[in-house]
């Protein structure tokens, strides 16, 4: 099968696997980009095409379609941050992030949604950020849609998504058919393990190949450790290779010098690099306000097979509850792909109880509710801290306000699942059981303890930590991603978001990156 990366490398694309280096080395370019995900990948293409020399750094390896295996036991350790074992400090929320060339876009589920209007309004009101009229992101959404083949998914939803649609129809709830960034998608359902067909238009198969084709250098299996800076300028970036388990290892010292540095390591890792570098932080916001869209899970048994592993993982969502009238926590309803490891580790219980549920694997329909954190004073997100090894860990407090949202989400999902024809529903919570009617579920959910570790919580959307703001006192970077204190540093990734989005992040990040990379290119050329 065609593998555009292997083909490109064979014709001489510049790639260095840092883990193979045996001597200290220094590299120079106009721009060094740290991280190759949504922000870094998009920026790399735009800057190289503007004629700038670019080096892309990535902690993960250069895996591509002919390496991908449709097996979680391979994908999680090799393509995910911390081997997919990342968790908040108290271990209450599991965090999925990509760590491979293409970042999270290589393993994401292809859902593409524009930034919701109420989110932009909130940014304007709270942070003075103006994305209206001539500052609108609309032209960039359109450009990104063109570049990444984003369009409405025309294939009927798989039964997992169809249940969400049916439930909404029966209850009169809002739902939307999802737009996906795919081209030639065979509807396999393995997006989370790397698309074997290069159908998903991730950074790995679009902007990164374009940047390499235009002469950029990619250094993989390298971990950016620290900026050396003086006054208002970064002087150099220190980095080390990673070992076969992607652990940073000081076997050699690598030094990168550039006119400008673009930080695109994603939320959590970008603020961590700045914290390690002890950069000025007069707003006090660096690493703070890290948002997760904490996601609540509900399983349901259907008589007919659901086979949630097959077919486009996400094709329907419901915004029925995302913008409530009151000030309670809103949540977006979606479904995840259902594969054995993801399911086995998230399902509560053990021994016979757990085994029994796993045996009904193909009849299990699974819903997730993504809590919209970051808009309410009692949902101000988590804080990135550094452990003894300088690695990040997010301290994320679950407030009473969020717990009430968790309960509302369990209720909404159970109601929807019964409306879609479920025979039984089980909120994924240590104290929950299989409930056979909506009435029974409703009563039981009201009594479920709202406590850490009782509710299974997960996140695949990490945002914030280097938030943008029009006012330097309330942000780390400005609306263009320029760092307020260091002149030759921009942050272009999910860490700049000043709240969660209430929508899946990738399209917002592509648009912002395109816009801010354009601004940066003009500045560096001018």
């Amino acid at each position, binding site marked *: *099968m065609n593998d555009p990366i292997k083909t490109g490398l064979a014709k001489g694309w510049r790639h260095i696997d840092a883990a193979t280096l045996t001597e200290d080395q220094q590299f120079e370019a106009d721009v060094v980009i740290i991280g190759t995900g949504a922000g870094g990948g998009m920026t790399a293409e735009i800057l190289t095409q503007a004629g700038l020399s670019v080096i892309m750094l990535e902690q993960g390896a250069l895996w591509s379609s*002919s390496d991908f*295996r*449709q*097996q*979680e*036991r*391979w994908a999680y*350790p090799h393509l995910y941050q*911390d*081997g997919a*074992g*990342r*968790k908040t400090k*108290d*271990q209450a929320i599991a965090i999925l992030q990509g760590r491979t060339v293409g970042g999270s876009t290589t393993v994401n589920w292809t859902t593409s949604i524009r930034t919701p209007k109420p989110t932009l309004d909130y940014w304007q009101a709270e942070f003075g950020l103006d994305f209206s009229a001539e500052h609108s992101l609309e032209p960039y959404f359109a450009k990104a849609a063109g570049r990444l083949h984003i369009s409405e998914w025309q294939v009927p939803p798989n039964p997992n998504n169809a249940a969400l649609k049916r439930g909404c129809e029966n209850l009169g709830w809002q739902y939307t058919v999802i737009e996906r960034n795919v081209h030639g998608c065979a509807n*396999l359902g*393995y997006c989370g393990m790397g698309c*074997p067909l290069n159908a998903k238009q991730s950074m790995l198969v679009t902007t990164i190949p374009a940047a390499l084709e235009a002469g950029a250098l990619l250094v993989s299996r390298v971990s950016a450790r620290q900026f050396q800076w003086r006054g208002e300028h970064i002087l150099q970036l220190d980095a080390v290779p990673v070992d076969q*388990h*992607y*652990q940073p290892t000081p076997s050699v010292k690598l030094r990168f010098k550039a006119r400008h540095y673009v930080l695109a390591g994603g939320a959590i890792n970008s603020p961590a690099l700045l914290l390690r570098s002890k950069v000025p932080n007069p707003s006090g916001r660096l690493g703070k306000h890290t948002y997760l869209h904490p996601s609540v899970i509900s399983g349901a048994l259907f008589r007919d097979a659901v086979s949630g*592993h097959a077919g486009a993982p996400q094709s329907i969502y419901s915004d029925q509850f995302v913008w409530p009238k009151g000030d309670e926590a809103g949540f977006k309803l979606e479904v995840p792909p259902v*594969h*054995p*490891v993801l*399911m*086995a*580790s998230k399902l509560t219980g*053990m*021994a*016979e*109880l*757990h*085994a*029994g549920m*796993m*045996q009904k*694997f*193909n009849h299990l329909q699974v819903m997730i509710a993504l809590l919209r954190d970051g808009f309410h004073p009692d949902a101000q997100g988590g804080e990135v801290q550094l*452990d*003894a*090894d300088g*690695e990040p*860990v997010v301290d994320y407090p679950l407030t009473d306000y969020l717990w009430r949202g968790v309960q509302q989400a369990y209720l909404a999902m159970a109601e929807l699942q019964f409306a879609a024809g479920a025979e039984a529903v089980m909120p994924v919570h*240590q104290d929950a059981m299989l409930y056979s009617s909506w009435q029974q579920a409703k009563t039981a959910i009201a009594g479920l303890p709202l406590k*850490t*570790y009782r509710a299974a919580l997960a996140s695949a959307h990490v945002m914030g930590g280097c938030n943008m703001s029009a006012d330097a006192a309330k942000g780390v970077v400005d609306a263009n991603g320029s760092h307020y204190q260091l002149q030759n540093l921009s942050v272009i990734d999910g860490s700049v978001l000043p709240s969660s989005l209430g929508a899946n992040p990738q399209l917002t990040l592509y648009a912002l990156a395109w816009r801010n990379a354009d601004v940066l290119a003009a500045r560096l050329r001018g």
Partner: protein
Amino acid sequence: MQRRQFIMLGLAAGATLATGLTLYPMFSEADKTQQQQNASLVLDALLPAILLGALPKTEAEQQQALQSTRQAVLDYLPFLPKRQQAELQQLFFLLSQQLTRLALTGHLLALGELSLEQRLQLLSSWRDSYLTLLQQAYNGLRELLLAAYYGQPAHWQALAYTAPEFRAYE
């Protein structure tokens, strides 16, 4: 009994926290073998309990499944952040030591000498403990072990799950 057990658990957790900082640097490369032994000991005791009902039917298949799952856990651990690895090594260490084992489990017997029922009770008591540390231990081990088991294609039959293969893997 219940109450005494709780106090013991508290002592053990206190000991873990107090010694945690000094234990961490103690684990060096040279201790890798010892660490693997501690981990294997604990995994071999807990896997047959957590996987009750999931394991294949015949004795030979069960042994095979337990061994390959233990290996899958050991192979996966180095991908976790060093901090998380150290925490797990500590837990394995404590559970394999005589004194702390008594405190953590409320039994004088080694983990492997408890009945499967007792091992499950032990895990449940951690789940429902008021000590954060034990709740974390329950959640962490449960996830780690179940993920390792269901990650193996050999165990997908019971799920009627198959994954497409575009070439031979290994």
